[in-house]
């Protein structure tokens, strides 16, 4: 009897889907104003869609200009009482919110994944724990403002409008609300049109925490609601995270009005691999830098700069590693790359990838069976990219990495800085002195050395140049929400 020798070992993971039966989602969510869920003035409800299945999850009230005005009035009314609370008591409300996010972490993670398409592993291990950590960190600042802004007497700005994107819905809400509230402002948060659900669960958490009515209002909606917030004369500050194009419109709109503004916008961040880098570690960092959250990350390492002497080796290893990425059901705990957030975003990615091919770059996309429904894009690598190609210049905001090469350190710095953006950068080298020298020369708000896409509530985040201004995280994150009295 002869046994056929096995040529190779091929195995697959069994599906490991996270359960959804513990969710307590309502069929319909109203606007959250004055501590209550309420009907929108113009009774407009729009379903929010699971991008992995294209199935509706719940109907969401979209705010119009009248709702925005009402929320501002309520927030204006609540603000003096909120600011007049003893600092430590304001902090205690934020500690409560942090604790409740931790308590409801599993539910929030599953909802974040359902609504936005990101892998459960990321929402469970990154988005939700960091959101809780941000509230916890700023809870502790509420009674320590005199240490955060040293030797100055400070006061809250008043009522702030905050507009957040769809890539990290709850986390961005936490980045915005936690410092604003700690400083004594009241806030109106507009979640993104495709991902309103976790913000609405956060509204429930505000109720559970018995946060005073009107301190936080949450108004889902599209650009109409955002524009109404920006145009309203009733706000003291706007904080916006999103595209540079919209950020520019907001800055233009606010010109001459004396309204505070912080912008956290797009990026085309350079991830620089030197010949003396630990290559395997760098490859993991490159993958994390660009494929984390399907590349829907403003600081994604989308421009990969590799020193010529190791170019072939790094690309070979990167391509091999990409072949092991698991693309598919975001609720599966083994999934690395989930669904593209929306049909609109998928079209943007496809357009830019097509431009890359037309302009002569060499495209490779990994072979993977994509689900029939939903929005998907296979992780993609472009080589032979020239610095003038659109895929080397424009933000793709998808799982697409463009490789450029360099010969010297000076050339790496010049190429890395050759962008209208300046949000983040990565440096891979085992030489510490080189890493710090390059870090000093980069015009970017965040520089990671031998790591990528790390975030912490204590570490300031924000961009240079057209990536925006203002910082979130740490004591620097207090300043945009405070006014120095004297």
């Amino acid at each position: 009897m002869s046994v056929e020798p096995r040529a190779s070992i091929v195995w697959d993971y069994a599906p490991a889907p996270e359960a959804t039966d513990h969710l307590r989602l309502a069929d319909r969510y109203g606007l959250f104003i004055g501590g209550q869920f309420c009907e929108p003035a113009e009774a407009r409800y729009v379903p929010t869609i699971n991008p992995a299945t294209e199935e509706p999850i719940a109907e969401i009230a979209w705010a119009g200009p009248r709702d925005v005005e009402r929320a501002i009035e309520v927030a204006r009314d609540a603000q003096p009482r909120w600011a007049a609370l003893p600092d430590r008591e304001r902090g205690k409300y934020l500690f409560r919110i942090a604790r409740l996010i931790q308590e409801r972490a599993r539910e929030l993670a599953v909802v974040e994944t359902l609504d936005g398409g990101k892998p459960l592993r990321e929402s469970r291990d990154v988005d939700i724990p960091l959101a809780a950590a941000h509230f916890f960190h700023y809870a502790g600042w509420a009674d320590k403002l005199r240490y955060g802004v040293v030797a100055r007497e400070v006061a809250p700005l008043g009522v702030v409008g905050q507009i957040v994107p769809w890539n990290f819905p709850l986390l961005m809400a936490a980045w915005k609300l936690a410092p604003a509230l700690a400083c004594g402002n009241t806030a109106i948060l507009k979640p993104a049109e495709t991902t309103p659900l976790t913000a609405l669960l956060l509204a429930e958490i505000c109720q559970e925490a018995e946060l005073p009515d009107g301190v936080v209002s949450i108004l889902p909606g599209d650009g109409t609601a955002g524009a109404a917030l920006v145009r309203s004369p009733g706000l003291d500050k706007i904080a916006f995270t999103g595209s540079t194009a919209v950020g520019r419109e907001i800055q233009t709109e606010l010109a001459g009005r004396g309204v505070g503004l912080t912008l956290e916008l797009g990026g085309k961040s350079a991830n620089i691999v030197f010949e003396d880098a630990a290559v395997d570690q760098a490859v993991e960092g490159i993958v994390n830098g660009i494929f984390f959250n399907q590349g829907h990350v403003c600081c994604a390492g989308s421009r990969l700069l590799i020193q010529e002497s190791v170019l072939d080796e790094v690309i070979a290893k990167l391509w091999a590693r990409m072949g092991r990425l698991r693309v598919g059901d975001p609720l599966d705990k083994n999934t690395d790359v989930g669904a593209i957030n929306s049909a609109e975003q998928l079209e943007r990615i496809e357009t830019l990838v097509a431009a890359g091919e037309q302009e002569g770059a060499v495209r490779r996309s990994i072979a993977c069976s994509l689900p029939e429904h939903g929005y998907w894009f296979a992780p993609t690598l472009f080589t032979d990219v020239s610095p003038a190609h659109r895929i080397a210049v424009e933000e793709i905001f998808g799982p697409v990495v463009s490789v450029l090469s360099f010969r010297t350190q000076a050339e790496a710095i010049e190429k890395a800085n050759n962008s209208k953006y300046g949000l983040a950068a990565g440096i891979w080298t085992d030489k510490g002195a080189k890493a710090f020298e390059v870090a000093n020369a980069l015009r970017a708000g965040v520089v990671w050395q031998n790591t990528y896409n790390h975030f912490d509530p204590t570490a300031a985040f924000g961009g240079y140049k057209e990536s925006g201004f203002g910082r979130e995280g740490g004591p620097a994150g207090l300043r945009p929400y405070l006014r120095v009295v004297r």
Partner: protein
Amino acid sequence: MERIPVRKTYKLWIGGAFVRSESGRSDVAGDFNIPRGSRKDVREAVAAARKAAGPWAARTAYNRGQILYRAAEALESRRAQLIAVLDDRGAGSAGGLEPAEELDAAVDVLVHYAGWTDKLQPVLGGINPVAAPFLSFSLPEPTGVVGVVAPDQPSLLGLVAEVAPSLAAGNTVVAILSESAPHAGLDLAEVLGVSDIPGGVVNLLSGRRGELAVALGGHRDLNAIVDASGDASLGTELDRLAAETIKRASHHAAALSYDHAVDDALERIVAVTELKTAWHPVGA
């Protein structure tokens, strides 16, 4: 027949364990026996604190903050019991503090210092603009094991106000409780014992202050002594003992309110903190 109540045996808290004094001595206070700690108990407590110091300092600031916050949660959940204990001590209110006020202030002080753990570094540390191509930065680190001599009154707030800054800064603590009213401090041990504070991070000893404080202050493996006894001659003695191994010594008046315990929070923390400067070449 009337039910016979089950009386509590108060114990010292050393290395996460509730133990009688190795000396076998105890004092009677009210209806209870209070263990009278010995010099050997002090030595064992310092050894336990030293063993716990490395792992406690190595935890992330965020984690230490959450643990202190949970200690506040645990204390608040035993509010009624602790208020009764403070009420019972017969010593009356200290500095005009009602028992409920004292308890609430103690909880709030823990919450305040829970928020400090991840603020120390940005507030106390920074990058040094040295005139050479180096990245030079300075950052605070815990000094190690801190001895605390708590005031007689207020027996709970006065203790928490001295212990919390050391814990927030990442130190472990050996504290000598109020001599006249040690009950609340010993009950606090039971509260902290079921919070997330690891064994040995806080060690609480009751007994004769004069005997214990000198043993603690003279211990050669202690890094700092925080004295809130209000006893000037003891303070001088502790300063003298501190000099033998260059301990950091500080003296505070008993904290009589929340504000009193937190207004000089940064100074309290600095007193039990070292500053480390690191240099790294840039470009060379």
